[in-house]
């Protein structure tokens, strides 16, 4: 599903160049549930951005579902993101002036799905998240857990192959975190690849494979006791 070979990435700020990723080799199969851990500055967010086609890399190859992702046009990147990837963010990143339903339906808008149809689909996803009654609510009327579940519904609606979650539980309390993780687990059992960035050990241990980054390199990979189950 995902194949990275010798990925390098530097950020240039003024005359300083910060070498963030120093040659990442990684292979993630369809349906895996992976967490990426590491201290801040280890390059985990950068890696996630590259995986999400939100950022470019300097060197190496990145294949997503057999397609080489490199220096394509913005329009093409947008299409690829829309088709392959769902994002879940720490700060939810819901659009504040749109209600829950509209937020969930947004990716379908960019797929030119007619309004009625996409609202119907969005409502189904909200129902799955147990938020059907909250469809008309604005994001500021919802709790953190509800917001994250809406964000997950939004990530799911375009039926992506990969879900990228950047500290999805970072802004939530423990109980809510576990609920959200349960949801993500369920998504994974449907066969969607989930890649999760976290710095919390307990969250990481709910995944099936833990990749630890240190100073831009993969320090260790641990299969979490059990071998990955591929449905």
């Amino acid at each position, binding site marked *: 599903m995902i194949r990275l070979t010798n990925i390098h990435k530097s950020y240039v700020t003024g005359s300083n160049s910060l070498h963030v990723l120093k040659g990442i080799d990684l292979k993630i199969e369809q349906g895996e549930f992976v967490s990426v851990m590491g201290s801040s500055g280890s390059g985990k967010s950068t890696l996630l951005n590259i995986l999400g086609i939100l950022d470019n890399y300097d060197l190496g190859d990145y294949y997503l579902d057999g397609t080489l992702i490199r220096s394509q046009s913005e329009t093409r990147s947008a299409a690829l*993101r829309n088709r392959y990837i769902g994002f879940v*963010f720490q700060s939810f*990143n819901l*659009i504040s002036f749109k209600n829950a339903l509209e937020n969930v339906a*947004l990716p379908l808008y960019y797929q030119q799905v007619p*309004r009625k149809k996409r609202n119907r689909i969005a409502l189904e996803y909200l129902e799955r998240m147990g938020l059907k009654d909250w469809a008309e609510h604005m994001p500021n009327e919802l709790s953190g857990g509800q917001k994250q579940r809406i964000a997950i519904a939004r990530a799911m609606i*375009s039926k992506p192959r990969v879900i990228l979650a950047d500290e999805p539980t970072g802004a939530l309390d423990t109980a809510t975190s576990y609920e959200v993780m349960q949801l993500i687990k369920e998504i994974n059992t449907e066969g969607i690849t989930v890649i999760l960035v976290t710095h919390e050990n307990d969250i990481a241990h709910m995944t099936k494979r833990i990749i630890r980054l240190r100073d831009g390199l993969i320090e260790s990979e641990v299969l979490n006791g059990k071998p990955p189950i591929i449905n």
Partner: protein
Amino acid sequence: MFDRDKWQEIFSTIKKNKLRTFLTGFSVAWGIFMLIILLGSGKGLQNGVSKEFDSSATNTIWVWSGQTSLPYKGMKPGRNIQLENKDYDEVKTSVKGIDKSSSRYNIWGNNILSYKKQNGSFNIRNVYPDYADIEKLVIVKGRFINHPDIEHYRKATTISTQVEDALFKGEDPIGKYINVNGVPFKVVGIFTDDDSRDDNMRTIYLPISTAQRVFSGDNRINTIAITVGDASVTESKEIEKEVRTKLATLHKFDPEDPRAIFIWNSLEEFQKFMRLFAGIQSFIWIIGFGTIVAGIVGVSNIMMIVVKDRTKEIGIRKAMGATPFSIVSLILQEAVLITSFAGYIGLVMGVVVLETVGKNIESKFFSQPSVDLQVAVYALVLLVFCGALAGFIPARRAAAIKPIEALRDE
């Protein structure tokens, strides 16, 4: 372009930012409003002056006599020049390009007109039939002085509506005789004059031949008026010069003498005014355009802030698969929508003000302020274009937002 979803997107952001949108729209509406008012006023000014000119033919040359101010062929300056019938005849026959012509003999002093027991003091102008065209008199009843009147020294007169009111008190004046300084004249027509200045309306017209004979005018005339048809200003100046030379020969004065005779060429004056108005018109456009540009810069500025405000939202949209084109058109359409809507409001307001307030301002040099539909359409097209221009730079900036940077922006 007419994608309902996109409009809904736009309306939802506009609804979210009512004040901001209002302020932006206001600057554009104000610009257009001012442009319309300015253009309308310019038009009003032009109409007013044109109307002034309308009351007598705009291609007339008036000639009246003065006193020589230059010595000529041994004669001292200071001679009075008296125009006579033969001057008029000479000018009329020898100068080419004359369309209508008339001489005029005025009877100065108090002229008492009376009919039955009514009487009043009025002006008497003694002219040829062409004079009606030169002064653009409107005959409301009967006729003006005609050629048989002149040839047969008929005692006929055409009176103004004002004279009619003063003397006849509702009686039909046609065919009645009025007393003009003791001499009975038959009323053959009634006129009115657009240029309702008092001395034009407190007037009766008599055949010049009759008047000269009856009021011992001999062969003296005061004024020669000619029209030059559709001659250009240069041609009209040429005719003016010929007239002057002719009269200089007849009366033996220096053709360069500025005070021997006076000539007023209305065509030249008219053209001067028209040029002035063309100048004012373009000046107004420049000011109006400047005002609009200020409004547009305002819109552009606000859209810039909008983009900055919405950086994160745009980042989210991009992560969800929004293409750069969809972002550009989102911002661009919002800008065009605001400018054209606000501009339209300004346009309508401007027209309303012109139609209501402007209609009530009616003075000598200002009348009927209005804007052409064509100008209004130009202004609207200009607006939509400028709106697109205003949105373009911010939209480009929005499209260039990197999703990661936007999403990091907490």
